[in-house]
């Protein structure tokens, strides 16, 4: 919240759209604003009435550079918008930077998402430090339900819950890297960095960065799904393959490769396999191992075919390991298997587990 927990004294709030961006149809702007207000109305007793003249509680406008409030915008990118907390006069007002390109989709800055964030300020919400919260100050595109637990707790602390609605299921908070029970969804290398997927987020570990960096998957790759099951890098082909359900995507660096998604069955996996739990490329053999439930498969990258004699049992062929794997990585003859909150360092040559660590030890915890 803002200092002194600023809020509107009553629950019936008026808004007025003073001008429109030329980037979108007028009706699209109206819809984006109304939907953004509904995000907050769904979880509070607040109602929003549109007015067409006079002073409204929330005055919405598009402007560029200095636009009348001595808080200038800065041209394209950088600052996207700002809004004032509840109060008289300029209080509650929301300004969008007209120098941005406003869109309905993910191709540029999505007006609905930015409006939902700004209108949070207009209602009394300050910035959240939870990277998954709508009130996090950095823009990221996402589809589906916008509010996190942190957003809902914040707004309901000011106005209470919506008496006419059953409790909505908020987005979970961003995973905490030092949670002792932390598990991973997928781990891969990407041109010397390590990328760890967990829920809607990924951590990026760079040899020159002292701390892992947590980002929403959608922030970097809007077309990827919110949940990644497995990922691996083939450095010879400079490709990272990302798996989610029966589909897979390919990255070249941070860019998506055209022609994807493809079905995982194109790799030669049988149709009964509906997801890959983990994948890892073994540089020394040129093979990629796919882990599915209690079994694993071997894929020959050079010929692009599955090796015969598979699937094999994980438990029998990797002595000392659990029977299932969440994620796997390979470094200098060692396979690191991640399962739930444990990490198993397996020597590929001596064929045994040589160390057991916490999963999040890779995140400096």
């Amino acid at each position, binding site marked *: 919240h*803002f*200092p002194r927990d*600023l809020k509107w004294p009553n629950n019936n709030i008026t808004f007025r759209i003073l001008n429109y961006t030329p980037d979108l149809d007028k009706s699209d702007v109206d819809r984006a604003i109304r939907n953004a207000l509904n995000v907050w109305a769904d979880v509070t007793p607040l109602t929003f009435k549109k007015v067409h003249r006079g002073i409204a509680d929330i005055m919405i406008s598009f402007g560029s550079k200095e636009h009348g*409030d*001595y*808080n200038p915008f800065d041209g394209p*990118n*950088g*600052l*996207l*918008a*700002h*809004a*004032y*907390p509840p*109060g*008289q*006069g*300029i*209080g509650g007002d929301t300004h969008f930077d007209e120098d941005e390109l406003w869109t309905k989709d993910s191709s540029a*800055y999505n007006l609905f998402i*930015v409006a939902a*964030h*700004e209108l949070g*300020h207009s209602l009394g919400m*300050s*910035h959240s*430090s939870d*990277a998954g919260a709508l009130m996090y*100050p*950095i*823009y990221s595109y996402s589809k589906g339900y916008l509010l996190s637990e942190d957003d809902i707790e914040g707004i309901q602390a000011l106005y209470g819950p919506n008496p006419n609605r059953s409790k909505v299921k908020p987005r979970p908070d961003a995973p905490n890297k030092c949670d002792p029970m932390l598990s991973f969804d997928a781990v891969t290398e990407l041109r010397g960095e390590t990328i760890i997927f967990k829920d809607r987020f990924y951590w990026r570990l760079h040899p*020159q*960065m*002292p*701390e892992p*960096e*947590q980002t929403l998957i959608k922030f970097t790759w809007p077309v990827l799904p919110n949940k990644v099951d497995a990922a691996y890098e083939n450095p010879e082909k400079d490709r990272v393959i990302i798996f989610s359900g029966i589909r897979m995507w390919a990255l070249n660096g941070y860019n998506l490769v055209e022609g994807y998604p493809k079905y995982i069955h194109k790799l030669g996996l049988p149709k009964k396999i509906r997801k890959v739990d983990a994948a890892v490329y073994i540089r020394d053999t040129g093979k990629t191992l796919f882990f599915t439930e209690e079994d694993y498969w071997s894929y020959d990258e050079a010929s692009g075919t599955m090796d015969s004699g598979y699937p094999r049992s994980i438990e029998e062929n990797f002595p000392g390991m659990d029977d299932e794997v969440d994620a796997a990585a390979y470094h200098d003859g060692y396979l690191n298997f991640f399962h739930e909150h444990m990490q198993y360092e397996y020597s590929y040559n001596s064929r045994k587990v040589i160390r057991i660590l916490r999963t999040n030890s890779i995140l400096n915890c």
Partner: protein
Amino acid sequence: FPLPLPSVNKENWNLAEKYLRRFYGLPAGLQGRQRTSGAFEAKIKEMQHFFKLKVTGNLDDSTLEVMKQARCGVPDIGEYN
């Protein structure tokens, strides 16, 4: 007081200064060499703490990367209170 890292060029330094002035109330103008620099470090630390970066007070790459991302700018609420 901390010196800019070798990798931090003048452009990045200016960007950081502008960012901290706008969002973290870094005082504008010179206020004596030592004091300005102490304020700069304190504001970087505040920003690093909020974004859950490693709190060093230095303008490192991950700090600069966050500063360069598109964001919301909440105006100073003091001006109309």
